[in-house]
């Protein structure tokens, strides 16, 4: 063992944030409870393991096949949407996507926007851009609305306010909504939200939503929800803008039912959600409601990077159900905010490096015990643990000039690599190992008391004064 301090990669606060959550007993208990609840609900939806396996094989096939034809399906989707009267925009970066949406707002003089839940709008930090442009963008999903009042970001992609208790929400409503008295009654709190947001729907001049599936063959956008805010956002205002990642396209309408079933059962343990909203056109002549203009913004933001690699392409199969985070022991302990990225948990660990580069996300692929639970429950069979190992290799390997991944080698340390190479050589050669272990046991007083990351929460590793092989020899 070396006295040389081991070199660790700065993790831009990931460890500190994780530690703070782990030390908070209250958060520990509430995350554990919420995850147990979601796991039990999902398990009840898949009582038959064979049915789950065969359905997820079908789901995986649909997503893989669509991705293999991605460029063709995107152009088919675009042609059919345009034929249906829906305007299509393409954005390479979050800035570009924000510019496109704000230009649509400006064209219509729209100052009041209602938003359905959209993780891609979180990814591009649309609300900040809207605020800077003087557009009031109101989150209307109950969870997202609570977070917007609190000035926080979602900590879960499906249950955004999962880290908040009803007491905290009661205080928040009392403080932020005029004329509201403190109540911990959940029904009453929801009715308060309903009342406030109904007025926003009534006044809004533009609506923004995400997309769960975009169907190429018919030019159709599908949205999954329980509350009805998604339907209101896409029906009441005179303009509707949908935004989604380029990977969300599927080829055929008949591919929707299996994916919808996998999504809702995996996400919240519901056999189906309250609403499945299927949009193919703006308001037609004679129709009395619905937006007169519908737009779709297709965002790349780094998605073409994993697409180019056959193994990493599987990342894009994701249908954003969140089951991987619900089953992740690391997520359950550190919560969604610790990751510092839009998408937390196992899916965040494998998608964020492509969106943000490996420099900014070097710590994430290592934030896993590789227990495999995420891969076991993934409804489209993404081999998340394998992809985590692959990304770790990309982080810690020597930077190469024609690297395919942005930030490849961001965690590379010549020292660390030399130490592990030396260790591999010693461990792989019995003669060398004998000499090494003899020296280590005799010189064990030289082992440092502080061993970088290891001793921050553990006692130091010290070689025993006598080797096992010596003890065994004596016994014989």
């Amino acid at each position, binding site marked *: 063992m070396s006295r040389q301090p081991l070199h660790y990669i700065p993790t831009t606060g990931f460890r500190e944030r994780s530690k703070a959550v782990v030390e908070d007993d209250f958060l520990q208990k509430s995350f554990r409870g919420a995850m147990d609840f979601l796991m039990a609900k999902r398990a009840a939806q898949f009582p038959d393991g064979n049915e789950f396996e065969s*359905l997820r094989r079908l789901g995986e*096939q*649909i997503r893989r*096949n669509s991705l293999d034809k991605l*460029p063709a399906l995107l152009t088919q989707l675009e042609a059919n949407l345009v034929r249906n009267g829906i305007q299509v925009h*393409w954005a*390479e970066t979050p800035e570009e996507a924000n510019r496109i949406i704000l230009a649509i707002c400006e064209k219509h003089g729209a100052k009041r926007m209602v938003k359905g839940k959209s993780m891609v709008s979180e990814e591009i930090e649309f609300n900040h851009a809207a605020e800077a442009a003087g557009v009031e963008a109101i989150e209307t*999903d*109950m*969870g997202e609305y*609570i977070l917007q009042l609190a000035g926080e970001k979602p900590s879960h992609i499906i*249950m*955004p306010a999962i880290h908040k208790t*009803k007491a905290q929400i009661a205080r928040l409503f009392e403080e932020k909504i005029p004329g509201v008295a403190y109540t911990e009654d*959940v*029904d009453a709190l*929801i009715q308060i939200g*309903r009342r406030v947001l*109904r007025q926003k729907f009534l006044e809004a001049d533009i609506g923004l939503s995400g997309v769960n599936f975009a169907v190429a*063959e*018919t*030019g159709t956008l599908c949205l999954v929800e*329980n*509350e*009805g*805010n998604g*339907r*209101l956002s896409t*029906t*009441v205002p*005179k303009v509707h803008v949908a935004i989604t990642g*380029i990977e969300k396209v599927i080829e055929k*309408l*008949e591919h*929707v*039912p*299996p994916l919808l*079933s996998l999504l809702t059962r995996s996400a*919240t343990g519901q*056999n*189906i959600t*309250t*609403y*499945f*909203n*299927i*949009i*193919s*056109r703006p308001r*037609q002549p*004679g*129709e*009395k*409601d*619905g937006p007169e203009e519908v737009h779709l913004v*297709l965002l*790349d933001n780094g998605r*073409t990077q994993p697409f*180019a690699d*056959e193994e990493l392409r599987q990342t894009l199969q994701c249908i954003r159900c969140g089951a991987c985070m619900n089953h992740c022991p690391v997520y359950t302990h550190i919560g969604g905010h610790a990751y510092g990225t839009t998408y937390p948990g196992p899916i965040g660990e494998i998608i964020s490096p492509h969106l943000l580069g490996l420099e900014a996300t070097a710590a994430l692929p290592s934030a896993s015990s590789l227990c495999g639970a995420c891969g076991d429950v993934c409804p489209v069979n993404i081999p998340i643990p394998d992809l985590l190992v692959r990304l770790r290799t990309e982080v810690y390997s020597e930077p190469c000039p024609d690297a395919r991944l942005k930030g490849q080698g961001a965690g590379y340390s010549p020292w660390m690599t030399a130490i592990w190479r030396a260790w591999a050589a010693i461990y792989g050669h019995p003669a060398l190992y004998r000499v090494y272990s003899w020296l280590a046991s005799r010189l064990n007083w030289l082992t440092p008391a502080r061993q970088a990351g290891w001793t921050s929460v553990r006692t130091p590793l010290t070689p025993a004064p006598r080797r096992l092989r010596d003890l065994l020899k004596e016994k014989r």
Partner: protein
Amino acid sequence: MSARDRILQRLTAVQAKEPSPAPEPEHWYASRARNESADGRARRFAAMMEGARAEVHRVDRHNWVEKLREILAAKSIGNLLIAPDTAHGSAARDGLANSGIACLAYDRPIEAWKPELFHHVQASLTAARSAIAETGTLVLWPDAHEPRLMSLVPPVHFVLVDAAHIHATFFDALRAENWAAGMPTNALLISSPSKTADIQQTLAYGAHGPKELVVLLLEDAP
């Protein structure tokens, strides 16, 4: 070069491999098909809907207006939004005349009466195109006569669905009705009153849409 062209260029620059095998959802659904009578499907549909907090009434297809009037009175609902150009809409209007329940017609664009729809209308009546037994789901295709917001804004939503139009699965519904041949402006699957569990995973109904969903399942009198 536009963003579109650059994105597509990056995607097409990747050496195309043989596409993975085409998915065959019809095989999966066929392998799991149940041998179920129409009545069995209707019962399964009703049980699933009731399990999701919808009210289901199995009624004689010639007598549903009476049931509607009865439920409206029991719930003390004072007005009902109907689609006057539809057969069921006008049947409801005729049947509710002199009942003390006002029938409001969705007969002008939303812009002309938005505040009234949001603040004044207590209930609505629409038809469903069909239904799905597996998940307890109503299929609605709103149109010029029966607009989209009818099934969303009023706090109580009454839906008529013909028991003869219940499919086993969503897949069966869109295959049997050949959806891919022509999609409407908006199609909807509705499976319960509006709900949320966003506050401490506690289920609450009446989030943004209807607080109550009342299904009148139309059947032939025995």
